[in-house]
């Protein structure tokens, strides 16, 4: 639950979508064609992995820095980094590209839970709190990204 507070703890959101890259992650067959078929087959999800990796790691590192700027903090001020749990390789590459200091604790829920899709950031946050890797008052950078290509990032102080 979120309510009014004297102390701002939810930073501005930096978000958007890059429609020119709509075809990097997509459903190959149109549902209308599938349903009109005499023998319908399940459509396929397809992804251009290397291009998505490049975008998710490097463009998202820039978006992350924009969110930090908007919140008026630097990477040094962060306690936790909680990115979308797509895969650990993207998380590693993004952390390197962001020049994240070693003291920042990084969400790794993907290792046990896999890619939990649109729920990954809150699930990973809850996991960090449960495991003692994050605590009330910590400054955390949240960032999510995916098909679209769509993205959003913000800095929060954990309740």
């Amino acid at each position, binding site marked *: 639950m979120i309510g009014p507070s004297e102390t701002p703890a939810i930073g501005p959101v930096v978000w958007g979508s890059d429609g020119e890259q709509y075809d990097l992650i997509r459903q190959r067959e149109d549902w209308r064609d599938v349903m009109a078929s005499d023998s319908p087959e399940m459509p396929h999800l397809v992804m251009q*992995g*290397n*291009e998505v*990796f*490049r975008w998710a*790691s*490097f463009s998202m590192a820039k978006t992350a820095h924009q969110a930090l700027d908007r919140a008026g903090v630097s990477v040094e001020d962060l306690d936790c980094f909680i990115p979308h749990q797509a895969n650990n*390789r993207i998380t590693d*590459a993004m952390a*390197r*590209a962001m020049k994240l200091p070693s003291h920042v604790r990084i969400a790794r829920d993907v290792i046990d839970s896999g890619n939990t899709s649109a729920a990954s950031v809150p699930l990973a946050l809850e996991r960090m709190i449960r495991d003692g890797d994050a605590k009330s008052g910590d400054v955390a950078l949240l960032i999510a990204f995916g098909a679209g290509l769509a993205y959003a990032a913000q800095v929060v102080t954990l309740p």
Partner: protein
Amino acid sequence: MSTEEIRAALADIVNEVAGVDADDVQLEKSFVDDLDVDSLSMVEVVVEAEEKFGVTIPDDQVKNLKTVGDAVSYIERARAAA
């Protein structure tokens, strides 16, 4: 930059991204077969190399860069054309 300077700078990038000993990153070495640099690490190497050397390496060219020498030659040509 000389060929050797480009190779050495590229070796530092490969070391940082993939943890490969920089001394092992020699011209005749294959990224995949000799250095164990997989396709995702290769994306990172390419992006870091673009920044370091001020060149552009399109995704459709990356698959042609099989050896360290291929990458160094590509960077040399791209720098000469810039």
